[in-house]
């Protein structure tokens, strides 16, 4: 009798776990985090810009590059781009940009973004969007003289975030072992990362705070047409949604089945022991 009571208790606990699992699986917090993610090619560089709509438990971003969408590498010798408000709730988000110099002409480069949440007690998460762009072949009479040769192999140089509250504001932490900081590329010539709040961006042109960056952005805007991002995955959103729904349903059925079988096995075992 006691064992039967225990078995019933076990079954109730198993059912509760199952219901909690189902409830969590259904939970979709309807918050948009990444509102825009784009890449634009120049004669030697690709500028990647992304805007968050809100940030909460976000330490920063890993930006990854690929030529085949199968093998991905972190950009640069630095592991990540820090959030403007690391691990601090910021419902208005911010805009970030990264210039990937030294890319080979004619090759289409793909980029994806990972939000680093682990340092703040959240999960790391890849965003769905994969964007691409390619470097345009240089013309015979270039209109500008660049600071660095496209074939140079200097390490990444990162400009600090302008901040009123910091006396020293290093953006990146090369000595830190972040979750997926496996960057090895040394082929990127010069890159600039900066972050501005969305509102500040609207009020002030993005190129106003750094002369070098201003020059580069002006060049890109004048001599390189926008290379539309290829939303390779987002074009298949419908299929993906159904795939997700199918996976979710299968997972739920599998979980439920496992728990029921487990519970039955336990009951049978307890009965046999009697």
């Amino acid at each position, binding site marked *: 009798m006691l064992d039967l009571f225990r078995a019933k208790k076990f079954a109730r606990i198993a059912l509760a776990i199952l219901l909690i699992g189902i409830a969590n699986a259904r939970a979709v917090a309807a918050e948009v985090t990444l509102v825009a993610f784009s890449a634009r090619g120049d004669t030697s560089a690709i500028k990647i810009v992304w805007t968050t709509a809100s940030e909460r438990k976000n330490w920063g971003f890993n930006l990854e590059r690929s030529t085949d969408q199968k093998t991905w590498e972190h950009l640069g010798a630095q592991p990540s781009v820090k959030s403007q408000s690391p691990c601090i709730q910021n419902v208005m988000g911010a805009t970030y940009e990264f210039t990937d110099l030294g890319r080979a002409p004619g090759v289409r480069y793909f980029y994806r973004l990972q939000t680093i949440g682990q340092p*703040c007690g959240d999960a790391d998460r890849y965003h769905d969007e994969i964007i691409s762009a390619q470097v345009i072949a240089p013309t015979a009479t270039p209109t500008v003289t660049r600071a660095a040769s496209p074939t140079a192999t200097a390490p990444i140089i990162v400009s600090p975030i302008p901040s009123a509250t910091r006396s020293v504001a290093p953006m990146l932490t090369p000595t830190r072992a972040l979750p997926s900081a496996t960057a090895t590329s040394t082929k990127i010539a010069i890159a600039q990362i900066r972050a501005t709040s969305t509102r500040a961006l609207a009020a002030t042109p993005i190129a106003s705070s750094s002369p070098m960056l201003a020059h580069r952005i002006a060049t890109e805007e004048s001599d390189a047409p926008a290379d539309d991002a290829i939303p390779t995955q987002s074009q298949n959103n419908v299929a993906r949604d159904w795939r997700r729904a199918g996976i979710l349903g299968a997972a739920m059925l599998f979980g439920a089945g496992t728990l029921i079988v487990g519970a039955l096995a336990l009951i049978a075992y307890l009965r046999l022991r009697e």
Partner: protein
Amino acid sequence: MSFLARCVLLISIAFLTACLPSTIAVPSTRCKFFIAADGFYRVTSAELQTAGIAIDTIDAATLQLYRGDQPVAIRVQGAGKNLTLDFYARAGDSLHSTFTIYWLTWDAQPGMRMREIVLPEIDAPPSTAVESSIRFAPARVYAPQPGDAAPSWFWQTLDAPITATIPITLPDALPGFARLRVNVWGNTPGAHHLRVEFNDARGADEFWEGRGAHEFEIAIEPRAEVNTLQLRAPGDPRALADVILLSSLEITYTRRLLAQNDQLEFETRAGNFRVAGFRGDAIELYDITAPDEPQRVANAIITPGAITFRTDDPGARRWLTLDPSIARRVSKIAPMLLTNLRARENQADYLILAHPDLATAAQPLAQWRAQRGLATRVITTEEIYDEFNFGAASPDAIRVFLDFVQREWRAPAPRFVLLLGKASYDARDVLNAPNKNLVPTFLVDTLNAEKIASEHAFVARAENDPRPVIALGRIPAQTPDQVARVVRKIIAYETGAPADWRARALLVADDKSPEFVAMADTLAGQLPAHIHAQKIYLAELGGDVKRARAELIARWNAGAGALVYIGHGAVDTWAAGPLFSAAHLGALKNDDRLPIVFTPTCLDGFFNHPRADSLVEELLFKADGGTVAGIAPTGVSFADAQGELMRALFAELFHAPRPTLGEALARAKQKLAPGSRAQREVIATFVLLGDPALAPR
């Protein structure tokens, strides 16, 4: 009486009811002082007269000062036009206002006065130095933390690796050791490491774990004036990241007893003491150990530029010595309004609770509602604070008032409450941002976000049951012009001729989860036959946001009675891309074809940001179109719980007899399960930005 005459009479009564003032035109016997900082204050009869108080007619013996319900001792000198009133005030840390309110009343019994005390005579050479504490805690960074008692504002973010250099002035410090107490908040879950250096001397390497408050103390050797504190966060190698928020610094050091700008506050134990450094001889000494009951020392010895005294109390006593001519002036004096808000014969169907600057602009709406048969009252938040909270701004005062109205006013109880004024989480105006906290709201923690605006407590059934008993809405206006714009829209909406566009419902769904499309389809299925559902689903458009946006804007401009956006969202954004955001408002030219917008998404109704307006606010205040009202979330919540609310809301809205928008939302919330955390959060954070008495057509 003819039908026409009866109509005129009814309209006249309604008009008079709407215009009935809440305040009574009799002289007030109370006024309030706005206090911005701790210190010794002096108020003169001239200042009181300027504020409209006939000091000549007041019996000075009956003057009584209060802080909340706590009497405060004052010192009254002179009479009539030569009267001065001295007191010691503490600014406190009000969560809802820059100012702490002290209020003065008269014409009752004799008031509490500062006592004069006689100290023992000097019996030894006096000390000219004491141990003193100084605290630095400027609030500059908004980083809300979970928990009722947890702070939201901090001094500085220390995001390792970083070195923060802080200059610290310690007035009149003597050489020797001192103690520095550092208060910080671990903002990441792992290990933290903070290295403290004071005047280049290594003070401490502090290690600790986890989120939350942490404090530690180290010995330092300060210099007389400017010192340099370095807080170095190298980043603990065990942690993925180390983000620390600096709360405050407190330094206890030995200082000379020298007045700074003719005043000094300090602490002693038993002994003889001498404070020098005054520019004149008009020096007074107060024992402010009990700050609401300061005691004036009658027998301190005054010598040129100095004051000497003795105390035998072995316990800590706090003193203030000053030249009274440098006493602080209160920031503002205002008569406290005599209202009839506590009168039990009051009755109203429709209450507009407005910031005083917006009350006049509210009158056309009050009159419009009165003409529609509602007994209407416009009440300012100032009246409520004066009557229910000793003059101090607080959302609790509004909640207490509404609770009183339901229990004590004549039946029937109010059906509608409209809050008129913007809110801001920066209630103390730390950021000096454009949006001010005109009509405060409550802030609650949710599963996914901290300190989110929540209006439910104003009208909740009970403390543990957030379901509303009154239809509540807010027009988060900052200016009378914005109020006028929304009122014009409301009247245009309700008086507009029947038109095809009113029978169209526009349903827009994000493609990031099948739940969004499923919810949109369910809501479309709930629409009655005469309402035509127009669907714009991103998934059906292959995720093409530009095409979806163009279609949305075209259909919006053509007109729709209801517009529903379901999907991921943010403060001013619908879906990634974005599908629609505040940047696209210029494309909307729907004039008076104004939909009610419903946004089961996240953050879309975040109406208390000090620097930004939410998308639903922008749509409401748009002059040549936009929307007439919106139901939107202030926070981040789960789609399935939002779906429950939307289904209940559509069941109310689209089935006869059609209720008002506010009543439909209140009834829909009443159908949700307060036992479910997700649904409780939806009840708490979904708000109506618009008029709760709006009649959907």
